């Protein structure tokens, strides 16, 4: 295997840079061996050739001083860095960079939980803290605070928030829980945002906006700086918790159930980031496709019905939870039950009925902030399974939900894939997460999937559906769909990039934002 090098950098220059990194950070924390440590920074669920996103090296500093040293070396050699906190999101590229040859700046060693404040219910932490880490820390210290975690418990609290990920408790919209960041800019400058920018501030972790322009948002899903510390609000443990599941028998029910859901969400009768899971994703946690169907193409309707019956699940399966004192939970449940009961064939389940089942069990944990990794079971839907994400946003609107579902399912089926997906329901929006599962070693299947994703992104955009997040391979294409007024927003993003990172060393291509020196060159 030829060693991947940063674009335009000779082997001699690269080796010199690596030697400087070893001196600055320690040899143990600079990874260049493609078959051991560095292999962890490849995208092992890549749809295209993994070489297109292969890193040249990785480096793991222990603190901000280390980051500043790395930045100085990157600026000296013009070697781009790709920052990850834990780099564990398998659907969107794991720890791999958008552009081959980047050195991955892995912040996993910066994993200190700096403060947990029980009184004001927040925590201050570094990028390498995973959901598992934070949960265990709170358990160990007897904290009465809950975390909110994404489905992969090994993910980073900060990294997920920076990519605007979501969880499943009432604090499921992660970015809204952020309250101040510390950021290292490309030139090594360290700054605090919000109230933290005032020396000795007493409100840096309780009032997020500070004074003047509020800049936190522009550092999320971006490449303008490296966030090294984050304050996040945590949910106090409620006096009661009652997870539930509601099944709906027909595909078309997604329209009415979403309409019924909207007032329940907006009025906070359902306080958590609830989720409406389609039949096959629900099933794939528990069984494999081969157990039911050995033909090519999408699973036919007759088989879908058999799966529904065998597993006693719906075409759609809604998971939510009640929180609070018993009378409040009882009262809210009446409203929820009355509302959903308008749909013919609806069924309601609580923990005592389905708590032992794997799907209900892990969802119940997620909705109370207990991290786990059971959801990855759906990868076993097909042999040697891998997945990517197509993730358009939708309002909490029945007609839109049905249309998006039908569009996504039709295209996936046209290209020979099953639709596996869910709607994660916020207050006024839904993250429609579609996860095509494919055989990672089947090149023909991957070519089909790549083509399908491109078609779907374009078709969705034509209907006004934009993706909130995407895999490395589609960052440019998705960015291209946010193009109103001659790409005014992207041109602003590029102006920020040119000012904040004039040498273009931070995460080139992240969210489609390229530094000036790479902007004119077509990137694979």
């Amino acid at each position, binding site marked *: 295997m030829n060693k991947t090098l940063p674009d335009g950098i000779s082997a001699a220059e690269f080796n010199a840079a690596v030697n400087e990194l070893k001196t600055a950070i320690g040899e143990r924390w600079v990874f260049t061996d493609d078959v051991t*440590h560095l292999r962890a920074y490849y995208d092992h669920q890549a749809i295209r050739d993994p070489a297109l996103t292969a890193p040249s090296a990785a480096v793991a500093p222990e603190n901000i001083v280390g980051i500043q040293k790395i930045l100085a070396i990157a600026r000296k050699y013009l070697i781009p860095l790709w920052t990850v906190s834990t780099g564990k999101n398998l659907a969107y590229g794991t720890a791999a960079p958008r552009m081959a040859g980047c050195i991955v700046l892995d912040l996993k060693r910066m994993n200190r939980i700096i403060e947990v404040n029980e009184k004001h219910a927040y925590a201050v932490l570094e990028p390498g803290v995973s959901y598992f880490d934070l949960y265990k820390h709170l358990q160990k210290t007897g904290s009465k605070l809950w975390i909110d975690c994404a489905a992969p*418990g090994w993910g980073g609290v900060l990294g997920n928030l920076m990519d605007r990920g979501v969880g499943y408790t009432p604090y499921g919209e992660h970015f809204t829980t952020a309250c101040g960041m510390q950021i290292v800019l490309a030139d090594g400058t360290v700054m605090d945002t919000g109230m933290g920018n005032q020396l000795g501030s007493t409100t840096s972790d309780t009032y997020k906006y500070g004074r003047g322009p509020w800049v936190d948002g522009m550092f999320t899903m971006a490449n303008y700086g490296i966030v090294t510390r984050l304050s996040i609000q945590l949910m106090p443990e409620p006096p009661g918790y009652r997870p539930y599941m509601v099944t709906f028998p027909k595909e078309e029910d997604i329209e009415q159930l979403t309409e019924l859901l909207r007032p329940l969400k907006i009025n906070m009768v359902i306080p958590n980031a609830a989720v409406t899971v389609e039949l096959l994703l629900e099933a794939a946690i528990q069984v494999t496709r081969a157990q039911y169907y050995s033909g090519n193409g999408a699973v036919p309707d007759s088989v879908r019905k058999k799966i529904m019956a*065998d*597993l006693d699940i719906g075409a759609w399966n809604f998971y939510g939870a009640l929180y609070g004192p018993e009378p409040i939970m009882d009262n809210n449940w009446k409203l929820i039950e009355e509302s959903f009961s308008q749909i013919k064939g609806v069924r309601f389940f609580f923990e005592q009925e389905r708590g032992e089942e794997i799907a209900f069990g892990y969802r119940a944990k997620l909705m109370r902030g207990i991290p*786990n990794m059971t959801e990855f079971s759906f990868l076993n839907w097909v*042999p040697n399974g891998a997945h990517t994400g197509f993730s358009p946003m939708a309002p909490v609107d029945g007609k839109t939900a049905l249309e998006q579902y039908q569009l996504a399912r039709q295209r996936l089926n046209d290209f020979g894939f099953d639709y596996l997906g869910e709607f994660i329901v916020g207050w006024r929006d839904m993250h429609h997460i579609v996860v095509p599962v494919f055989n990672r070693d089947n090149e023909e299947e991957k070519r089909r999937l790549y083509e399908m994703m491109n078609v779907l992104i374009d078709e969705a955009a034509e209907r006004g559906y934009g993706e909130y997040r995407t895999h490395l391979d589609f960052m440019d294409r998705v960015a291209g769909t946010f193009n109103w007024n001659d790409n005014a927003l992207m041109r602003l993003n590029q102006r920020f990039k040119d000012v904040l990172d004039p040498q273009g060393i931070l995460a080139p291509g992240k969210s489609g934002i390229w530094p000036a020196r790479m902007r004119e060159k077509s990137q694979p």
Partner: protein
Amino acid sequence: MLNRRTFLQTASMLLTLPAIPSLFAGLVKPEPCLMRTVTVQDCADSEQFHAVFSAENDRIGPDIGTYLQAIGDCSDRVSALFGLTRSSDFSILSQLAWEKGYRLVYTGHHQYLPSGLQHNLQADKYVLDFLGPILTGMKAPWARSIAENAGLITSSSSLESELEFFLPVQAPTGSSGYLVSWAFVKG
């Protein structure tokens, strides 16, 4: 078809033990190495694998997340990771193994089809030349044969060679249908 509950109760077994002597241990790897093994609970084939290492089994549930810290914590003293798991577990464990400085030296993909069992093995040629006849000879259940040759398999140095073969056997009751056997070694 699998009983639903049985399939759901997929789990992993973890133990630390010296690698069992392979039939070829004297030829390929004289020193025992410290190894951790991972298997899937309540899967008929994995039970065969598991039985070979049954002295100290620590079975856990279907959540691979509960298992990661144990593997990560032992990486300084364990020179080989060896397992037979679901494909999804292999994906997760691989990521961790690479991070901890292991390299992948063997994979076996084992898929039950309606007409029989498809094996696809990757390792160095030396290992496959020994392992192929053992598995095609079918003198013992295939999963057991793989487990019994842990020493041989973990002596592989790369994934340079591939061996694919098909056996006309039916899936046992309680099989996961598709399993991956794998070996990582340190350094």
